[in-house]
């Protein structure tokens, strides 16, 4: 019954060889089957809007009344199934309104009047060139696309909220509760989110892919200008290069892609 060392080594060798070749055969076969269908291809739609660096200019002269703000925010809420929990702790924000003091904190002088500090501004995700949220994300759920958009893949988000801590603009919101019951009217063409997932403005990637401008841009009546900052002939590039625009917290070096055109009119 006992075997000697030589026999043991031989048998061990045979078993190892069998195991290895078996697994190679199985994975090889599986690969073939998948390959058969992988001849199929993926491509971007021919209608898709392309750019090297999507950017937005917020022309504050076009935001005068409360209605101007509401209109753009509402256009976003309705197509992105953004819930309204009715309390600021759980609030989900994609595009919202904040005052000058908080939008451009750090840059204000101490003699500013209160009325100036309270000037309203439209704020959203800045789609930074150096997005700290992307660096913080441990799963790659938030990522920078080649066109400059900082996008979210909700499938991969594990809800650690590191990105929320990393974002200096508070542009990310966490679903502490199930959002579905709090969505006024669900748009079936856009997914809702689940509890435990972070979300934010995505510059409407799903609309750009279909050749449409972002919803807020369409609703803004020219108050929001969207285009390719890399293209010298685009409207955003012309404004950014010839007019005085400011960005939020540039001292942090994140290089926001949202520019604020101030002093363009009698307002702000």
């Amino acid at each position, binding site marked *: 019954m006992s075997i000697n060392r030589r026999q043991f080594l031989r048998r061990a060798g045979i078993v190892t060889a069998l195991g290895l070749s078996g697994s190679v055969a199985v994975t090889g076969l599986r690969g073939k089957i998948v390959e058969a269908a992988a001849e199929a291809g993926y491509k971007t739609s021919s209608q898709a809007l392309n750019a090297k660096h999507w950017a937005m200019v917020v022309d504050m002269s076009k935001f005068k009344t409360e209605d101007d703000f509401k209109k753009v925010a509402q256009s976003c809420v309705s197509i992105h199934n953004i819930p309204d929990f009715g309390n600021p702790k759980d609030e989900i924000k994609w595009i919202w309104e904040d005052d000058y003091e908080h939008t451009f904190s750090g840059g204000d002088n101490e003699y500013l009047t209160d009325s100036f500090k309270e000037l309203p501004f439209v704020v959203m995700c800045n789609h930074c060139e150096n997005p700290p949220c992307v660096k913080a994300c441990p799963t790659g759920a938030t990522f920078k696309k080649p066109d400059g958009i900082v996008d979210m893949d909700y*499938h991969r988000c594990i809800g650690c909220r590191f990105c929320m801590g990393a974002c200096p603009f508070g542009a990310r919101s966490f679903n502490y509760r199930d959002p579905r019951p709090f969505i006024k009217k669900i748009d079936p063409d856009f997914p809702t989110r*689940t509890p435990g997932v972070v979300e934010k403005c995505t510059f409407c*990637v799903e609309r750009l892919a279909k050749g449409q401008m972002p919803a807020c841009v369409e609703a803004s009546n020219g108050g929001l200008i969207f285009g390719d900052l890399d293209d010298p002939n685009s409207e955003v590039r012309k404004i950014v290069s010839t007019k005085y625009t400011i960005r939020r917290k540039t001292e942090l070096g994140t290089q926001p892609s949202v520019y604020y055109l101030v002093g363009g009119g009698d307002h702000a």
Partner: protein
Amino acid sequence: MYKGGKIITSLIIFVAFLTFPFFYNMGKANAGPDNLVANTKITANLQCVESTEYMKANHMQLLNQWRQAYVRDGQTEYTNSQGKTFDVNLNTCIECHATGATSHAVGLSNPAVKNVGVSNSSVNTSDQFCVSCHNYASVEPTCWSCHSGPGEATK
């Protein structure tokens, strides 16, 4: 064998205990997913993204590829092995793979595992295509906790 009787008796009891679920359920064969065809809406172009055999075996990989392509690579069109192009979208599946008779209520989370009013969850009477097999196989996809379910999408 020392204390052979006790050992063998215990072994028999042990094996009987271990195999109890098999004997208990013997003859009560689960009704397999048989309403697949009934749950497919007959549309003008009743051609699936890939062949039925391929989809049966690999739909999960294909869905993962679609997700990768759409969400991360921005590629919204899929050309299949026959050269036919489809929108990379769950709605493309649902156009056919649901009768659209039921539309789940807002807040009710997962129509893919809906078994309301079904005493034996393996016998599925829902008209949801995915459920037909997924309940039977006890695999719960979470697609519908975010994506709009069958019968909801407008395009």
